[in-house]
Each structure stands twice: as C-alpha cells, then as structure tokens.
C-alpha cells in the first residue's frame, strides 16, 4: 500500500451543509442551472430552496440522486422529469408536480393541484394533502400515494404503475385505463369507462404494503383498500363499443 500516493491525491470538495438558494434573491434559472450542473451527487448531496413563492418549474429536470428541500409553496411543474433526486415541498404544489418523473421521490407536504404525476414513468410521488383533478393522468410506471382525496378524471388513460388514495376519488376514476393499478381506501364518486373494481389478491396486498411503507404511512392497513383496474374491453376498437369512446 502506497500511503504517499493517497496523501497526494487531489482533495475533493464535498459540501455537506445544504446549499441554500433564496429565490427572492436569485433567479429561478440560476437554481435550476446549478442543479443541472451537479455531476456527482456526493459532492453536493443536499440543497435547500427558500422563498419559492409559487415559482414555476422549481427543481425540474434534476438528474442526480441529491436531496432538495423546498421551503414553501411552488407553482407549475415542480420536479418535472425528476431522475433519482429526492425533492420535498414543504407547502403546496401547483399543476403538474412531478410531471414525467423518471425515478426518485417527490413529497408534497401540502396539497397538489391538477395532473400531479402526469405521464410519470417511475419513482414515487407522495402527496400528504389532497390532489385535485387528473392526478396520475397517463401515468406510465410512476407510483403515486395520496394521503387525502383525488379529484375527477384521476388516472385517466393510466398505463402502468400504482395510484394509492387513502381518501376518496372524484368522478370518472380510471377512465380508459390500461394496466395501472388503483387502490382507493375511501369512496369513489364514479368509475370511468372500462374501469372496474377488482379482487385484492395477496400480491396486491404485498405491493400496497410496500408502497405505504415507502411513503412513510403506518396508520392504515392495505386490507382497507379496494383495487380498481381495467376491464380491458376498450383495448381494440369494436364497433359495438362506439358509445364508450
């Protein structure tokens, strides 16, 4: 072992204290540019954003496994396209939080506006308050856990992934759904076209337990949920189904 070589190795600068961005002082582009310039998450693992005041696209397009704490409410598309980062919004989120997320986790401590997690391909989106309309629209592999209620047209055309709702779901849940799985603990106001109630088999209980664990939810049991999914009657065009389209 050559100790001297080790001692001569260039020192890497690691910033363990969170790097703080005040959006009252710095423009949003500066924040997102800095987040995009991270090439090694272990250099700057921890970030904090203060005074977001409803800004759009806060921490969108992050592609490293860093942690971003956002202190306040955000506007459109927070954490959009997120890849591996763990983003926590200590407030509410505007439309399209976590849109097209690839991986990682986004947690919203407050409510989320419409189309939360839309088209998401992976990762976990946790909304501790309510989500409004079109939550998980066209989801393609993302897992979404909502502690409160979701609004109308949630999981519209949902293709894969899991939507877990501890509260109630609004009108037309899972309209034109493909292979996503929906678990609702409360009432469903109405089911959309081709979405039906399904049996909870052991693999679903196990999956739900895993999702609740990952979302840090310990006060409800998987057995309290009802599963909904596709009846698979609209997959191919059939003239007899014309009214259902």
């Amino acid at each position, binding site marked *: 072992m050559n100790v001297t070589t080790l001692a001569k190795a260039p020192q890497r600068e690691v910033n363990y204290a969170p790097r703080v961005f005040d959006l009252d002082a710095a423009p949003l582009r500066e924040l997102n540019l800095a987040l995009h310039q991270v090439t090694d998450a272990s250099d700057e693992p921890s970030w904090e954003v203060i005074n977001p005041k409803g800004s759009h696209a806060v921490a969108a397009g992050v592609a490293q496994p860093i942690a971003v704490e956002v202190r306040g409410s955000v506007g459109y598309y927070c954490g959009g396209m997120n890849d591996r980062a763990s983003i926590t919004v200590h407030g509410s989120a505007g439309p399209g939080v976590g849109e097209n997320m690839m991986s990682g986790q986004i947690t919203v401590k407050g409510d989320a*506006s*419409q189309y939360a997690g839309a088209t998401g391909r992976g990762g976990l989106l946790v909304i501790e308050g309510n989500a409004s*309309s079109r939550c998980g629209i066209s989801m393609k592999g993302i897992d979404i856990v909502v502690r409160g209620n979701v609004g109308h047209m949630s999981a519209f055309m949902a293709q894969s992934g899991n939507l877990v709702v501890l509260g109630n779901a609004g009108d037309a849940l899972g309209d034109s759904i493909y292979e996503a799985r929906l678990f609702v603990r409360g009432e469903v106001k109405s089911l959309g076209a081709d979405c039906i109630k399904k049996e909870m088999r052991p693999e679903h209980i196990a999956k739900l337990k895993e999702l609740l664990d990952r979302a840090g939810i310990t006060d409800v049991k998987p057995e309290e949920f009802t599963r909904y999914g596709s009846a698979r009657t609209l997959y191919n065009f059939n003239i007899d189904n014309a009214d259902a389209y």
Partner: protein
Amino acid sequence: MCGIVGLFLKDKTLEPQLGAMLSEMLVMLTDRGPDSAGIAVYGAATKGKAKVTIQSPSPEADFAGLEAELSKKIDAKVKLLAKSTHAVIDVPAGKVEAAREAIAELRPSVRIMGAGEAIEIYKEVGLPVDVVKRFDVTKMTGSHGIGHTRMATESAVTTLGAHPFSTGPDECLVHNGSLSNHNNLRRELIREGMKFETENDTEVAAAYLSSKIAHGQNLGQALESSVNDLDGFFTFVVGTKNGFGVVRDAIACKPAVLAETDRYVAFGSEYRALTKLPGIEDAKVWEPEPSTVYFWEH
C-alpha cells in the same frame, strides 16, 4: 391562457390599499396575459349618485366639454373625471339611462365600460404594469375588485375585447378560458333585447349572467345556471355591488386558487399572485372545486 385576480376585503382598514394590492397581484400574472389588462374596483357608493365609466379612442377631443354638454342634455349636474383613455362621470342615480343615451348621441365614438353606484372599470391594451400606471390603479380605494390579464384567443386584441365586461349595473365578470356556444347564446340574448359591443365570448357570459339576474335570480343562482348553460372552458370571477363570486366549469382545467383570512378573500389564477398579501402564510388556501359556486357578500 389568461390571468385573473380578485380581492374582497373583510377588514375595512385595508380599503385604502385595495388598488395597490390588486395591482401587485395583477402584474404578477403578466406572463399569463401580456396583451391587455383591466380592472374593476368597487369604491364607496354615494347616496343618490351613480357612476358611469366611459372610454374613448381619442379622449382629448371626446372628453373636452362633455361635462357641460351632458349636464345640459340630461338637465342634471354631472361631474367628469378623466383618467387617460377613460373617464368616470358622476350622475344622479335616476339619470344613468338618460346619460347613456345622451353620451351616445353627443360622442358617438365613446363607449360605456360600465355603470353603477360603486363600480369603476378601466381596461386597455398593453402590459399590465403599463395599464396599472396609466389609470393610477395603485391609488384606488375600495371594498373589492377584480383584475384580468389577457392572452386573446376568441376575439381581437382591442380595448373593448379586454376584460372585465360589464353588462348590468354594478356587475362585472372576468374569464379565463373559452366558450364554444357563445354565438348561439348571443343570438338568444339579442332576441331578449340585450346589446353587444364585441364578438367576444366573455361578453356573452357577462350578458348571460345579467339576463339571469334581470329575470330575478341572485348572483349565486345565475352562476349555478351558467354551469349548465355555458359550454366550454371557464373560470369566472364576478363582482357585484356587495359581492364577489367564483365558479369553474365541470372540467376545471383552467387554474384557480382561493385564499381566505379574517381580513380578506383573494383569488388568483396561480398562487404566486397571492404571495405578497398580508398574512398569506397563515391563510386557508385551496383550489375551488369544479361546478361549485363560491360567493361572498358584504
């Protein structure tokens, strides 16, 4: 896209700041609607008096001498206060209709923006910040007000195509969205005797509500009816002499945020419009439900 803001004050001590607060909210939503902006402010009503807000493309020529000519024509003393392209004329309460007719005759190029005991309406083409400055909105006082930043979709970018629209006494409406059955509805309302200034869809919505109110519905009922009768996308914020209402269509794709504290109720197309309001950190903030009428009254 368009931006809407609204502020309904519960705490009278905030009234001197209404214009300043609304202006700040409006300018914050510039990028939702940079082509025109407008504002309706409900100030103090004076017993026996009404206000008529007028607009002219050539204000210097049109407003000169109008006060005296109008006083003579309707046989009552009126007072005209010009603000850029707009002017507010104080007339005796019973003389609003006479004043409307006389203005049309005396100054054919002048348009009536609105009339009532409390309402004043200002709207123009241009960036919200410039429109606010042009009409000195920051200095206005009042109990409630509504503002709009416009990105035109359904009709031309003109002063008259800007919001708010007023088609009844002390009534006004701003709209984010687009209506798809406005041509049919306009024809029906014209048959009822309503007059239209533009091809704009929002003017039809305002006239629809005024017609329902004229037929005996209160504003809340008129808004309930609009959910069934209007086709298309809309988030509406409406003002009356004492009230302030919000309604969204059933699809509710046009954004809306409400905030309420002991001191005010505020509306914004986005939360960022509300971030400078006093005590917003502790306000109840929520997204209004689709097809649900929210209404506050003094």
